[in-house]
């Protein structure tokens, strides 16, 4: 039995790049914090607590991005059978579960002062909750399958099915007449945003996307390093 060569060096390089991007992202996050606290105006109705919106919405967006990419990578994997796609999907899922967990904890923090309850079934929170469960299921299945090829195939099936579930969740929630009807995740809280709010929000989106890319890159590199170590 022979072993296919796998470079630990390549893996380390990828991890370094990922960590660099993540560090930049975290720096950007600090900037967003500052902007949110100092630069943006305080919203009339909701007060200071509204500011969590600058973290809340982009985190939800990142979770959705992470999951969509898991779905796309899964579909491509079943077509091309490239292990890199599977590695990427797994990395994206882990980052996604982290982002959805962030969103699910910041959501209630926001909801309590605004709406008086910790949890609401509004569209954004509900969708993120489902993404969280889908991620958890995806990762649980991966942990339960030993054979790498089988694990990749099974994960891909869950990824594709999950990606197609998301619109149905969205549709169900939309039909359901929620507490505060907000059918689209990206819809802002007020009909027209002052420019400072919009700018900060957009910067925050960029920062979270950067964080996503950084974390996924680092995680991907880590997975590659683990495989290289196991093969040696």
């Amino acid at each position, binding site marked *: 039995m022979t072993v296919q060569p796998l470079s630990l060096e390549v893996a380390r390089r990828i991890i370094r790049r990922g960590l660099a991007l993540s560090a930049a992202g975290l720096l950007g996050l600090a900037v967003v914090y500052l902007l949110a606290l100092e630069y943006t105006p305080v919203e009339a109705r909701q007060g200071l607590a509204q500011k969590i919106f600058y973290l809340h919405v982009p985190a939800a967006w990142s979770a959705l991005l992470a999951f969509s990419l898991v779905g796309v990578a899964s579909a491509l994997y079943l077509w091309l059978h490239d292990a890199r796609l599977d590695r990427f999907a797994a990395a994206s899922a882990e980052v996604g579960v982290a982002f959805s967990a962030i969103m699910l904890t910041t959501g209630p923090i926001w909801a309590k002062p605004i709406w008086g309850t910790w949890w609401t079934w509004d569209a954004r929170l509900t969708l993120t909750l489902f993404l969280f469960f889908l991620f958890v299921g995806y990762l649980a299945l991966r942990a339960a399958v030993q054979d790498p090829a089988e694990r990749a195939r099974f994960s891909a099936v869950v990824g594709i099915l999950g990606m197609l579930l998301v619109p149905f969740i969205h549709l*169900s929630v939309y039909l359901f007449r929620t507490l505060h009807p907000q059918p689209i995740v990206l819809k802002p809280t007020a009909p027209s945003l002052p420019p400072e709010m919009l700018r900060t929000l957009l910067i925050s989106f960029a920062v979270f996307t950067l964080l996503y890319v950084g974390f996924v890159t680092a995680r991907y590199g880590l997975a590659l390093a683990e495989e290289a170590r196991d093969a040696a």
Partner: protein
Amino acid sequence: MPEVIHLALAIAAKDIRVELRSRTALVSALVFAALVLVIFNFARDPTALSATDLAPSALWVTFALASMVALNRAFTIERENGALDGLLVAPVSREAIFVGKLLANLAFVGTVELVTLPLFTLFFNVSLWTVLPGVLGVAALATVGFVAVGTIFSAMAVRTRFAELMLPVLLLPFMVPPLIGAVQVTTRLLAGRPLSEMLGWLRLLALYDVVFVTLCTLVFSAVVDE
């Protein structure tokens, strides 16, 4: 094309015959359903919450949980003596295998639902007679959807060490749209609302069925072919 249906029916018939011999999955699911209904009844305060308010949710949660008890059966029997390999080396398309398993699972879950319905009317003192066709219709529509997804997930779950745990973890998110739709329609049926109020939900259920039955049939090969 007829070949696929022929083989699917042969496989479904075989599954049904196997289950009727041992009856374990069927009986377990039925008993489970009855118990869940009983728990729902005792868990509510009769003065605070009327039976009719709780009824549709109780019914559908019962169906959802009971069907999960029955779903792993389909691929567990294929693991005995490596029988699945027997299907895979034969000139049988993977789509036919999936459809056959789906039909068998629908027969079982359908049976559980049909037997549970009279119990439900009894425990919750709800009259279904006037709306029976509607209830059966929405039951069929919703069940097809989550049983399709459940069939493919059970094919994967039985190959892990924790089949009974893995199936619910994977399947429950997928049960939510059909369940929401089914409960909404059932509630309106029991309240005698007009069809127009249910159309949106019925369309959702139908779309879900079409999308997921098709998708699951197509990706099944990825689950069983190495």
